[in-house]
């Protein structure tokens, strides 16, 4: 067997390619994928864009909110990771992820494009927050366009990841 300079690490969990925000998703498929792979992995690892832009994932969180929270609590007490993990740039703070995405990119001067919104909604969002510097105000503009359910989703996911510190997966080299 060829030798590695550094031995490979065990997986922190599964990364579901089907949660890509540019792929057509349905809740049943996402639910099955999450549940089945949760039986074969430490956790299901979720990225910023999956958490923000996947309507199917949002529905999964909403529908199973109580059960997911209970599982995260039990796992936390046992020192184990919960079913769902965060690969987020802001760890467990998904509200901060939204703020990051709404902050104009220094190169383009524009916030991140949200594929959960239509093109028209994205244009509207960009126009409305162009001169807004307060992050709370920016967020409210987004919530007003994306629907109030989205605001609940953001707070729910933040609450979920904060329940169990082992939900957060650190990037390699940053541990």
């Amino acid at each position, binding site marked *: 067997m060829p030798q590695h300079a550094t031995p490979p690490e065990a997986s*922190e969990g599964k990364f579901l390619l089907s949660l890509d925000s*540019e792929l*057509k998703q349905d809740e049943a498929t996402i639910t099955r994928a999450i549940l089945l792979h949760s039986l*074969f992995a430490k956790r299901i690892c979720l990225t910023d864009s999956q958490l923000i832009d996947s309507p199917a994932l949002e529905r999964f969180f909403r529908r199973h909110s109580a*059960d997911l929270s209970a599982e995260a609590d039990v*796992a936390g007490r046992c020192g*184990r990771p919960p079913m769902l993990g965060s690969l987020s740039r802001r760890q467990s703070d998904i509200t901060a992820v939204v703020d990051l995405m709404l902050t104009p990119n220094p190169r383009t001067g524009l916030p991140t494009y949200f594929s959960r919104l239509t*093109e028209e909604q994205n244009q509207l969002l960009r126009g409305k927050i162009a001169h807004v510097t307060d992050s709370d105000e920016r967020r409210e503009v987004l919530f007003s366009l994306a629907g109030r359910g989205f605001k609940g989703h953001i707070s729910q996911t933040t609450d979920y990841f904060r329940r169990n510190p082992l939900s957060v*997966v650190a990037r390699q080299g940053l541990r």
Partner: protein
Amino acid sequence: VREQLTVLDEPWNRRWMKPIDLTVCDEILTEIGLNPEAQSRERLHLAIYGGKLPHYYHGEIQRSSPEAEDTRRHSWRHPINTLYSFDLAQKYSSAPVLNSKWFTLPDCLPRDEMPAITKLERVGRVKATQIHFDHLTVPFVAAVRAEDDFWASLNRLETASVSGDSSGYASAFEEHLRLVSWRFREHLYSTGWRDLVEESAVELWAQMLPRGSALSALILAGVGQWYGLPWQTVGSAFLGTVGSVGVFTLIARGLLAGVKVRSPKFKAFEVNLRKMVE
């Protein structure tokens, strides 16, 4: 992405690529080279389309042009997304999982005349209770994950996955499959669905792919479709990284109730990237 496309940019690959594919490949590499540190998928997308980026909404491309060149450019988008996702997953030590019918192996990659380079091989067979999705619930999964046995078995599986020993990985997978299967059987009994308890022979099929090449990533993303696996196989294809050998795909055939998996096509997995791995 740059690493993968640089390989694609080798002369023996460039000679079969269409002019528009060459242009797209060059533009992506140029864009990455302008600022390698500022990693953003949108930058890659802009390079693909030459700055005129169509967006997605609910999985549908918006305002796409029907012109041949634009269609050709568009075929690069999901492969680039896949490479980007594989890289992101690796940065967080997580394993990309094939579970989608939505991915399309782009037509800029396969070529008919190339010989097969990969094969699925049967590596094991285990008796297991079939999983019925209608009864696969969050509380059930939570209950299984709360058990010490589950974590002991999972740890053995994880250890095997980095050992470089594919047969050891297959054995550990079999053991874990038995545990999950047994728990699901108990779950069906305890919830009054004993009629659904059905033992079947689950076959484990494996595919070893070269390590660290675009080929691995793209084939893994497209393998389900290529082998005729229906979308319901979501979750029946489990991927693990087997040490330094390569990427190891394990498909548990027959695990999911009501899911018919057609026989794998052994003879052909024709992708015009063979020389990239030689």
